[in-house]
């Protein structure tokens, strides 16, 4: 195939192709991307508002808004709602700090606020571009947890969510530059992490059987029953498969419970961060079990599929956990 064109253009093309080949062969050539982040990040930050707003409005419209209400009443209600959300956000901030203090207890780390500003250009990988404030310094491998992830959906948070806390693991940093980083989501096929499964049992609330000492309720299956975490953690290895988190080679004898559909169903066993990782404390939640499949090679083991708690499609505000050396 002969390329016709002026000689300088052909030479320029040849030079650029040679440059591409050199980049492919050079290790660490990806750092070249960091030079362009100061341009891309602010534009992506502004552009990201559009799809998130659209999703928010679609969610509100399909969320069952009452028909036939007076438009003026709706407007006043929205104004009141926005005022309440401002007060709520301040209250949540205080609660989050209290929550993190109790969850992290003793784990020395810095929390770096970050905001999702865009995705990678190609949807074949589950990765997001992050920007964080001046002074933040995340490293590849740092675990990212969410904070007010469902900011626009605060009112629509379903009550069936396990009530251990407000923050879940959503991924880890794999590439860093000044003020920006790439987040690999927990559903990315390349994501893997040691984790632990916790069995959840439904028991009647109150009375003599109010749960084992030190293991409080984790949620409510029915109005008169409470879900409790029971038994020792089951060590597993979590990997993404593009849609969910997959745990392979889990002994079938553990009797893993999947999340039931409908009100009052079993909330599903929990996937939490394992104590074998030093990047976050033990017990930070990742997701819940949605189905299991027996392995064909050995029926004594099952493959467990876990759905992340965080809504990764509208991921916006996240929090990077940076361990601090003693």
């Amino acid at each position: 195939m002969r390329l016709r064109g002026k000689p300088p253009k052909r030479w320029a093309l040849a030079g650029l192709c040679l440059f591409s080949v050199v980049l492919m062969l050079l290790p660490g050539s990806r750092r070249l991307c960091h030079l362009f982040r100061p341009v891309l990040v602010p534009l992506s930050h502004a552009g990201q508002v559009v799809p998130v707003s659209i999703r928010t409005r679609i969610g509100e419209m399909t969320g069952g808004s009452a028909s036939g209400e007076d438009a003026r009443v709706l407007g006043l209600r929205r104004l009141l709602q926005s005022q309440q959300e401002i007060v709520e956000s301040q209250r949540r901030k205080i609660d989050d700090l209290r929550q993190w203090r109790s969850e992290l207890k003793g784990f020395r780390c810095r929390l770096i606020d970050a905001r999702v500003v865009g995705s990678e250009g190609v949807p074949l990988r589950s990765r997001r571009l992050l920007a964080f404030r001046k002074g933040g310094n995340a490293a590849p491998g740092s675990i990212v947890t969410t904070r007010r992830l469902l900011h626009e959906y605060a009112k629509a948070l379903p009550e069936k969510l396990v009530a251990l806390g407000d923050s879940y693991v959503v991924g880890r940093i794999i590439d860093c530059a000044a003020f920006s980083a790439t987040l690999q989501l927990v559903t990315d096929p390349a994501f893997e992490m040691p984790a632990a499964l916790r069995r959840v049992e439904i028991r009647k609330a109150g009375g003599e059987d109010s749960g084992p000492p030190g293991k409080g309720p984790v949620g409510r299956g029915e109005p008169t029953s409470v879900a409790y975490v029971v038994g020792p953690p089951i060590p597993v290895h979590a990997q993404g498969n593009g849609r969910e988190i997959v745990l392979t080679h889990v002994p079938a004898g553990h009797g893993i419970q999947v999340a039931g559909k409908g009100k009052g169903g079993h909330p599903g066993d929990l996937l939490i961060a394992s104590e074998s990782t030093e990047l976050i404390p033990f017990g930070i939640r990742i997701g819940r079990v949605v189905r299991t499949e027996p392995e064909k090679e050995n029926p004594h083991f099952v493959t467990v599929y876990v759905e992340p708690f965080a809504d990764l499609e509208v991921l916006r505000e996240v929090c990077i956990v940076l361990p601090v050396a003693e």
Partner: protein
Amino acid sequence: MRWIYFLILVLVAVVLQTTVAPALWFRAWQGYVGPELLAAVSVFVALHTRSAADAALAGWTLGFALDLTLSGGGMGLLALLYAAGAAGVFHVRDAFFAGRPMTQAILGLLFCLFVYELWTAYDVLTVPDRGQGWWPQAARAAGLAVYTAAVTPLVCAALKRVRRLLIVLPAGRQRR
């Protein structure tokens, strides 16, 4: 080719691809499938530019810009594949009616299949085994190609309005 305007178009396309385009993704069997706007832009430029070198240079620029938004290994491969794909579209365009949406869709499909099947093959060969194999990635790349093929006529129709800003036409010729 007016390169200043083209570079502005590349920047706008990259921002749209990384921010607005994810709103068009949908969840498929093995992950998300979405359109590739830069591929559609590359097909448009290859269909209307005057020389193969211009088409290849424009393709390389689009591929490199997209590569800058990615992470992991293989930096530079996407630029090479885009340049080769754009040159290929330029050389086969005489066999088609460039203004027809079906032509644009087919060329968009072939372009994406060429670029992303090779790109995923490189990814699978060079990255340690994730336990998935090549074919799930290839299926998602094919899904991306089909989705982009559907979007390409729309992108071409939008860019046709600004074609004069991008491509210098010879005097006396209003359209190709």
